[in-house]
């Protein structure tokens, strides 16, 4: 620990570099905080220990949920690019390869840069260091081939390298679900997804994307062993009882070369603890978190926490929390007036509240609702197997029977999200002002088949169905984000929601457009009775196709 005598402290302060605001972490919340503060006139520096900014954001290649103000239907890495542009425009200094290794009294920090350290002062500090991955140990978990979910994303999405060929995913929260889909997109095979919990922890729509590709879900299962001598060659899982103990005789084995761990995140809050902030252990927020007020200020005046470090949530909420803390820091140091700050906070607070609603809201953690806000049954099949069953699907307001072409929205959980509503210019889709409500398909409106709704749904849960395509066939237009992209005239199989092969299918249209942002629209022709079952297309294996 550094301890200066009073005389030398004064001397050091006189020459020490000082910033109005020091932000620790250049992830979504850190960059947002810095931009807000810099736009208010503060001299801001952001330190990040990594060599690239953006935290985990640039690894997120899926489209975000929420509403327009939450960057809905925009892919994570595009949001990251936008954040960097805003920060640069506001004059924010971002220093990379600069690890803040200590926060001391009087908001002094030490930063390690390359081969030296620097001792600096911030009038205010915002700690936005994010979270680290949780671990679940098992026999053989130290073998090469066992990796974190973040590692899989880094390899695939930043460096273009496949993490492996055959993967077992552990964890069914949004991270496990999203990364599993990204593994499929990278050309890997996800052999199974296992979770010791009895129900899938993440969004049903994320699970459904996997289920229809044939990925099996093993809920109430835990991994018992990673096999191999110098690398993973296989894995064994077992069913567990209600005390999470493996049940004898239920072991299943998979041939895999990679085991991916996605069992949750914990705030990386050690710097806050060191700075003297009051901390508490809050399982709902992910572990050791600082006590903060609604503006992110800790028990130490002028030190704030924003983003996952103050409670595990998502990038969307992290960005708003960053703005909230940035505005408050600006007020603290007199850069903006109380009225101005109050107006901004009102707007931020409304945006944040908009996200924190519905089935997966932070306040709802641990509680499993049985009915949606509309009073419809929550699908148990979706929660345990990852897909809506054929007879369940028709209960939801987005699934209607209509003559001719119409959207079918298989959205069955209350999540704040509404890009589908904005996508349709012909008023076919309505969510309403409360964007947590399930989307409804309007019976009176005419669908033009533009496909914008299909491409805009971040959960890939919207399809265009025409049961009257011709005498014997129906057409189903589905979102397709894989390579190789099928071509009109190709033949393959139609898969149902559970991933089972239903029938042969002919590709009758493939649409690509910049407006769809890489979500291609694939239209297949299937027998009429498959119209409400066929939800994915599997191309024929190369050899069969050439025959």
């Amino acid at each position: 620990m550094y301890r200066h005598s009073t005389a030398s402290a004064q001397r050091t302060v006189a020459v020490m570099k000082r910033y109005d605001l020091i932000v620790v972490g250049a992830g979504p919340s850190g960059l947002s905080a810095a931009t807000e503060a810099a736009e208010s006139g503060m001299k801001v520096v952001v330190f990040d220990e990594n060599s690239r900014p953006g935290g985990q954001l640039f690894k997120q290649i899926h489209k975000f949920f929420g509403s327009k103000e939450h960057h809905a239907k925009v892919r994570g890495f595009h949001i990251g690019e936008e954040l960097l542009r805003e920060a640069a425009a506001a004059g924010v200094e971002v220093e990379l390869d600069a690890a803040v290794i200590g926060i001391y009294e009087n908001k002094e920090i030490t930063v390690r840069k390359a081969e030296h350290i620097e001792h600096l002062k911030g009038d205010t500090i915002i700690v936005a260091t994010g979270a680290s991955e949780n671990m679940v140990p098992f026999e053989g978990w130290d073998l090469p081939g066992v990796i974190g979910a973040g590692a899989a994303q880094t390899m695939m999405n930043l460096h273009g390298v496949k993490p492996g060929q055959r993967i077992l995913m552990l964890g069914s929260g949004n991270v496990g679900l999203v990364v599993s889909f990204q593994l499929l997109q990278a050309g890997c095979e996800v052999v199974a997804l296992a979770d010791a919990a009895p129900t899938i922890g993440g969004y049903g729509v994320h699970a459904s994307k996997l289920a229809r590709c044939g990925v099996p879900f093993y809920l109430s299962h835990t991994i018992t062993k990673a096999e191999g001598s110098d690398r993973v060659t296989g894995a064994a899982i077992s069913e567990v009882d209600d005390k999470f103990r493996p049940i004898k005789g239920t072991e299943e084995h998979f041939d895999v070369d990679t085991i991916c761990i996605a069992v949750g995140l914990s705030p990386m809050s050690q710097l806050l603890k060191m700075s003297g902030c009051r901390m508490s252990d809050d399982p709902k927020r992910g572990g050791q978190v600082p006590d903060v007020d609604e503006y992110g200020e800790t028990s130490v005046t002028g030190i704030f926490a924003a983003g996952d470090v103050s409670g595990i949530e998502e990038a969307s909420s992290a960005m708003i929390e960053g703005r909230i803390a940035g505005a408050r820091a600006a007020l603290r140091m007199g850069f903006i007036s109380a009225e101005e700050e109050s107006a901004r906070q009102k707007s931020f607070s409304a945006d944040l509240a908009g996200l924190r609603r519905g089935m997966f809201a932070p306040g709802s953690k641990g509680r499993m609702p049985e009915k949606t806000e509309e009073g419809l049954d929550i699908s148990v099949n979706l929660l345990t197997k990852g897909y809506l069953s054929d007879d369940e699907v028709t209960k939801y307001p987005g699934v209607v029977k209509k003559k001719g072409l119409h959207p079918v929205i298989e959205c069955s959980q209350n999540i704040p999200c509404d890009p589908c509503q904005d996508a349709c210019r012909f008023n076919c889709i309505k969510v309403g002002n409360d964007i947590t409500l399930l989307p409804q398909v309007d019976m009176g409106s005419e669908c033009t088949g533009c496909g914008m709704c299909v491409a805009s749904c971040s959960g890939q849960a919207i399809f265009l169905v025409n049961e009257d395509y011709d005498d014997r066939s129906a057409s189903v237009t589905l979102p397709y984000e894989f390579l190789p992209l099928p071509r009109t005239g190709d033949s393959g199989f139609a898969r149902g929601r559970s991933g089972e092969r239903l029938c042969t299918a002919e590709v009758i249209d493939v649409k690509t457009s910049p407006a769809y942002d890489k979500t291609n629209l694939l239209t297949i022709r299937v027998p009429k009775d498959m119209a409400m079952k066929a939800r994915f297309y599997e191309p024929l294996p190369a050899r069969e196709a050439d025959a």
Partner: protein
Amino acid sequence: MIGETMDNDRRIAEHPVLGTIEKGRLVSFSFDGRTVEGYEGEPIAEALKALGVMVHRYTAKKNRPRGIFCAIGRCTDCVMIVNGVPNTRTCITPVQEGIIVQTQYGVSAKDGGSHEKI
């Protein structure tokens, strides 16, 4: 299987969302005495992964193999001897032409021998 040359099946040639991921120029470097290839600027660990290399080191106490675990420079499982420096996190250290990468045994090169100097 380790191939001296790039095994393209381990690299994603074209990604459905990201397209072609930008890479630096192809360069040669040394891995345990063999000449291999990687892209300048990418993390050493990624280049090794694309070559099929899974084991980066053997632990000091129990001689157990370790490889990439977190891939973001935090867990230190991927460390190797790079240009004579042990405990170098290969997941955040970039490939450069001519670097010398060695499997780490404990904290030394094999058999506790001297590290290859640059």
